[in-house]
């Protein structure tokens, strides 16, 4: 798949093809264009990595919540309001100094939509999907994450409907921080496992 999608919609034959199909289905009464508007708005503006970042920040600060995540991640995350499509069966993965977790879907693009929004292009791309399982350390290095060889790398290939959320390690020097301030350190990629949570000094 293209790593560099064509941003010029005017020249993109897919634009015409998509419009034509939508128009046909609307005229046949099969699709409500307003429903598409709501779907686009939802994933463009409402659901995104900020959801998952709140889960991570609370997991860092609230041991009872962390325990609940371990027992039933789906329900616990749903109770924060992040539930539904592509997050029906959640598991959380806890990074430690000994173990780094990293998520991929080699067969398609499975991703916890309700918790992280839609996946980035690189996550759906052939380079990531092919190499995350066979050379995860090399892939992490390309993301600037160089882990010591003593750190075990655990890759999770989402081959069924289970969706994974990585809980990165809480950065040093964040004792006493609020959940909101902590959440700002949690990048999308850290929750996929291709990044670490940001250090406080790097937080503008």
């Amino acid at each position, binding site marked *: *798949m*293209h790593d*560099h*999608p*064509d941003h010029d919609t005017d020249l993109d034959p*897919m*634009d015409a*093809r*998509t*419009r034509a*199909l*939508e128009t*046909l*289905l609307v*005229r*046949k*009464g*099969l*699709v*409500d264009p*307003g*429903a*598409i508007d*709501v779907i*686009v708005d*939802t994933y*463009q503006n409402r659901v995104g990595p900020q959801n998952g970042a709140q889960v991570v920040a609370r997991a860092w600060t609230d041991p009872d919540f962390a325990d609940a995540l371990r027992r039933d991640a789906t329900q616990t995350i749903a109770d924060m309001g992040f*539930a*539904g*499509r592509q997050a*029906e*069966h959640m598991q959380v993965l806890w990074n430690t100094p000994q173990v780094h977790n990293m998520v*991929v879907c*080699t*067969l*398609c693009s499975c991703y916890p939509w*309700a918790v992280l929004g839609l996946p*980035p*292009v*690189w996550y*759906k*791309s052939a*380079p990531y*999907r*092919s*190499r995350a*399982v*066979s050379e995860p350390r090399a892939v992490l290095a390309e*993301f600037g994450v160089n882990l010591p*060889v003593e*750190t*075990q790398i*655990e890759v999770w*290939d989402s*081959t*069924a*409907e*289970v969706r994974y959320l990585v809980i990165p390690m809480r950065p040093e020097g964040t004792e006493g921080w609020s959940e909101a301030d902590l959440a700002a350190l949690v990048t999308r*990629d850290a929750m996929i496992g*291709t990044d670490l949570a940001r250090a406080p000094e790097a937080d503008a």
Partner: protein
Amino acid sequence: MNGPHDLGGRDGFGPVIPETDEPVFHADWEGRALGVTLCSGALGHWSLDESRHARESLAPATYLTASYYEIWLRALETLLLRHGEVTETELQSGEPDTAPRHAHRQLKADAVLDVLRKGGPVDRPEVTEAAFAIGSRVRMRPDRIPGHTRIPGYAKGKAGTVTGIRGVHVFPDTNAHGQGENPQWLYAVRFDGTELWGAGAEPGTAVTLDVFEPYITAL
């Protein structure tokens, strides 16, 4: 099937290139393609498994050169044709000339948020005993499987350890082909890097897959 989608462990695709400040959609049509795919799915003709199979059944040259939403849209056309909601003539002309089938199931704008919130859980009642337990040593089936399956090629025939029991889930291998949900126990099975890649494995790596019970045999 071991089609173009089965990318794990394949060489030659080059570096991963993340995009800085990546937008959710790179063009308006991507959002529309997503929306029309979800709305069409709501018509109730096909399962998520069938739609995945439609995508992976695209010609390899198409699959590997198309953007992801192009793959979705092409597969959606296939599904709509297969289930009689559009004809080739209609796709060519853009003009409706056959009656819709499931218009009564049209997803209305005001129902979208509720539908997204509910999602489509695939867990089913646990009416049988799980054949494997945490710690069980198992081997992934080595079989060539012409239809839809969620066994990646790189794990075929490999030995691993059950590390999680996920419950009983809809079985994609039958559900994708309209042969029923046929629910099966689902396990997390962990494979050591050296089992998967031999001497070519990176040190200290492992891959865990979600594996349906029919995919594995006791070691």
